[in-house]
């Protein structure tokens, strides 16, 4: 999940204790400059893994400590797209193809479905890509485009933007 709060002095430190109290595991702390406003309203995001059932408890503990939460996102990889790859997927090391996304830290292949006909024929795979943000999704697709080109695979992307 993702917690978003104001980056005023003390807020981040105050949030750490309740998180560890409920058994949460901090994945990342992201300081972000809010482009739309002035420098004194910096935001901070805490990305953490936590048992879903303990979220309400965490929220109330954070409130007690005086941390004001602006937003709670339950999933880190909130953006999801489906792509299809066609070609000699095994010969071109599908594990490596997946890993090129997984190791970015901002996107992951969360599902892989491969249909393999006869050995010499091209196989087809459906990949579900999840990413932290829209920009990250675009970056992940860009990586897939480059990998597909290099490995001579046909990448079929979803249509974005149209009605």
């Amino acid at each position, binding site marked *: 999940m993702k917690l978003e709060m104001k980056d005023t002095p003390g807020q981040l430190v105050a949030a750490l204790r309740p998180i560890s109290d409920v058994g949460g595991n901090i994945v990342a702390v992201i300081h972000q400059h809010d482009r739309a406003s002035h420098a004194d309203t910096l935001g901070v995001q805490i990305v953490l893994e936590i048992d879903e059932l303990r979220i309400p408890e965490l929220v109330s503990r954070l409130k007690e400590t005086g941390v004001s939460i602006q937003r709670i996102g339950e999933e880190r990889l909130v953006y999801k797209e*489906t*792509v*299809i790859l*066609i070609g000699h997927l095994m010969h071109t090391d599908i594990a490596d193809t997946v890993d090129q996304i997984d190791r970015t830290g901002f996107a992951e292949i969360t599902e892989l*479905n491969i*249909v393999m*006909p006869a050995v010499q024929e*091209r*196989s*087809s*795979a*459906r990949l579900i890509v999840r990413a932290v943000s829209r920009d990250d999704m675009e970056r992940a697709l860009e990586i897939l485009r480059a990998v597909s080109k290099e490995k001579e695979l*046909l990448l*079929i*992307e*979803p*249509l974005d*933007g*149209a*009605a």
Partner: protein
Amino acid sequence: MRIVILGMGSVGRGVLASIMEKDLPFTVTGIADSKSGIVDPSGIDPGKVMTIKREKGICGNPGITPIDVVRQADYDVLVEVTTTNATTGEPATSHIREAIMRGRHVVTSNKGPLALHFRELKALAREHDVSLRYEATVAGAIPVMHTIENGLAGNRINAIYGVLNGTCNYILTRMAEEGLSYEQALIEARELGYAEADPTYDVKGIDAAIKVVILANTIWNMNVGLSDVEVTGIDLLTTAAIRLAEEQDCTIRLLGEAVPNKNLLRVSPRILPRDHPLVLNGTLNALTLSTDLAGDITLIGKGAGSKETASAIIGDILFIKRMYAGRA
């Protein structure tokens, strides 16, 4: 309105048949096919010339060439409906140039000249104060150019997305519906007359890319050509890939797209939700125009066919007739 028709194939015959059946206010003063021509200032009977073409294979006098007809006949509008040559644009480009320089309007379904010499031909027409109209070159019967030019005149168009090749759409529909392989679906499309003997232009996405070029040049006054479009066809698609998409209530269609602010001109197979307005069955074409005022407008209709393409040609001729009414 006096017209000359170059090309007596599917489209040329469709125009002639419509003139006859609908009693359109046109007098045909010249016709040519690849091997012959005929010029008659008093008007050629469309029915008769079609019978001659059917029986003899040629429409007129083998001593008269198409360019002779362009130069010698008496007409207001040249209807250029000969075969598209996407590499040279010829001989259609020469026909069109010649007619414009004679001060004649031009209506065409031929993609070659528009894809290769858009700016030059538009400028030439402006210089000679005549119209060059080409509604039939993109999406057959669908009035995309009229919509862009008139109906959406006050809008800024931000992007276009379209199903611009009926052959590909048919093949993909059949692969999805019946689980046919690409090869099987292509054979079927050929048997039904939806695909040419050499389907390369269609299945490799080139035909769709040419239409993206014509649209981009028209809408945003770009100066782009086929080589500016990133093109991927459908010939390497597998039935399994389509099934993988269908399992998620999606499917695959070949889409052309142009998004200037992303610098994007592309034709590629894409994954779309099955209920998306651009997911159509069979040989239909469609175009979505994303605009600032009107929002998204999607036009759907027949992208090819004798009468269907004739509809676009006739619309252009009548538009010219109305626009220049009262002028010398």
